[in-house]
């Protein structure tokens, strides 16, 4: 048992989630290896975003949410043990559907995570911001404007800034909730390239409505339908030879 857990970065076992009386996730069990990109696909309202948000307990912010089952990260059940949810979230980066930079300068946006950890040294902050912006492929575009408001950036730049903000604190997992759905094709291509490059450092889980995107960026794909994980396998297999009819129907566009 111990060994089996140790192999995987993220793992759930019969994980169910309820919004009040309504069940949003039904006994989802999944194992996700480190340094891979996993894509969740499925029609709107199928529970894939809810599942993604469960990994850093963002659903705690919604009243009347109850959960059942296990959700382990690095062998620790984040719902059962008395973990410090704030300290824990620092290890999990999250990028949202719409770019949501703070109305602060570019520098302060990226430095936010370090500042709330109590980092005061100017040099440390400067280096961390620069590294994160390099990793997010944004440095060349903003290096002369670090003190300008982040709100002045384009949507695609804002989203890469949000990625920089998330990775500046060196998390081990990066959760992305439709990170490119509000962006134009060129910005989307940049984000996808970025996901490919970041894979060597982080374990990435991405929710997407765009099946070509799932096929392009991910190693493994999970198909969700009505709160259930219908099928989870290598991305090649899911898109060429899925085991379930529902998956086949969804990826060929027959429903959803």
């Amino acid at each position, binding site marked *: 048992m111990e060994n089996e857990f140790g192999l995987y970065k993220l793992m759930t076992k019969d994980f169910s989630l309820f919004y009040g009386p309504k069940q949003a996730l039904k006994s989802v069990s999944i194992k996700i290896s480190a340094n891979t990109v996993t894509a969740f696909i499925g029609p709107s309202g199928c529970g894939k975003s809810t599942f993604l948000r469960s990994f*850093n307990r*963002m659903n705690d*912010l919604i*009243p009347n949410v109850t959960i059942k089952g296990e959700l382990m990260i690095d062998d620790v059940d984040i719902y059962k043990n008395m973990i410090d949810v*704030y*300290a*824990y*979230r*620092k*290890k999990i*980066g*999250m990028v*949202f559907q*719409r770019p*949501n*930079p*703070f*109305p*602060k300068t570019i520098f302060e946006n990226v430095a*936010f*995570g370090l*500042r*709330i950890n109590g980092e005061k040294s100017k040099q440390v902050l400067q280096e961390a911001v620069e590294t994160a912006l390099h990793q997010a492929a944004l440095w060349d575009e903003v290096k002369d404007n670090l003190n300008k*408001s982040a*709100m*002045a950036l384009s949507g695609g730049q804002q989203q890469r800034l*949000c990625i920089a*903000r*998330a990775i500046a*604190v060196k998390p081990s997992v990066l959760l992305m909730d439709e990170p490119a759905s509000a962006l134009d094709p060129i910005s989307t291509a940049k984000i996808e390239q970025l996901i490919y490059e970041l894979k060597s450092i982080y374990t990435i889980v991405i929710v997407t409505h765009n099946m070509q995107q799932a096929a392009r960026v991910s190693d493994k794909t999970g198909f969700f339908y009505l709160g259930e994980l219908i099928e989870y396998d290598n991305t090649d297999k899911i898109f060429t030879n899925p085991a379930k009819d529902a998956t086949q129907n969804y990826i060929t566009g027959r429903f959803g």
Partner: protein
Amino acid sequence: MNRRSLLSANAKDKIFNVFAILCTGLSLLILVVLIGDILYKGLARINWSFFFNLPSRFPEQSGIYTALAGMFSLLLFTLLIALPIGIMSGIYLQEYGTKNKLAKFIEINISNLAGVPSVIYGILGLTLFVRTAGLGNSILSAALTLALLIMPVIIVSTREAIKAVPNSLREASFGMGATRWQTISRVIIPASFGGILTGIILSISRAIGETAPLIVVGALAYVPFIPEGPMDQFTSLPIQIYNWTSRPQQGFVTNAAAGIIILLVFTFLLNGIAIYLRNRWYKKTTA
């Protein structure tokens, strides 16, 4: 048929348009006449000595020195009391308080409190601070009363400003592992600061214009000294104006008009600052 109904709709539109312009024009006209009348009567009276003379029984020698000093010290103590409590309450109700029936009940009551006639606050202040607490006709009694008066305004505007902060910013902050307090102090308050400040300034401009509660808690019309501490007796500009308007001599009426001009200038100035801050804040968060 279609053409006819279109025409009549168009005519109704025009009639309403004219009606709206007339209504706006009327209220503007009244304002212009009032201000014009005050300026005509009082503008010539305003000079250096008007600001620095003590009140006197001769209208030409009277000034608003003690009234201004009283108004500012009153304002200072009022804000010292009302700001921390009001802003904290607003933050608590919006960010921490659970959204249950009790919270709803409190919310409605605070909104109602903002509309209670100010003289009621004066009577409350008289009973509670002047008599029961034994603070007498002091600046402190009046400041506590005015603080009660403007606190609902501060609470409501703080809540509105915080409510206007998009939820995506809260998610971003919590997603980074920020605690609730870090999210409030580093993200929500900076993002809503302009709105909170606007509410504060508008509440100040309400406080400096209040007369009724000050009369009830015992502001004096004739104070020949500058207040030196919170327990001193005091007067305030609206009280001084009120007192002058009730005198029969023409000279005091002129003084009252001059005092009103000064009070109006302060109010307009504060409202102007509020509008400026709101615009600046709006630009900063959207551009």
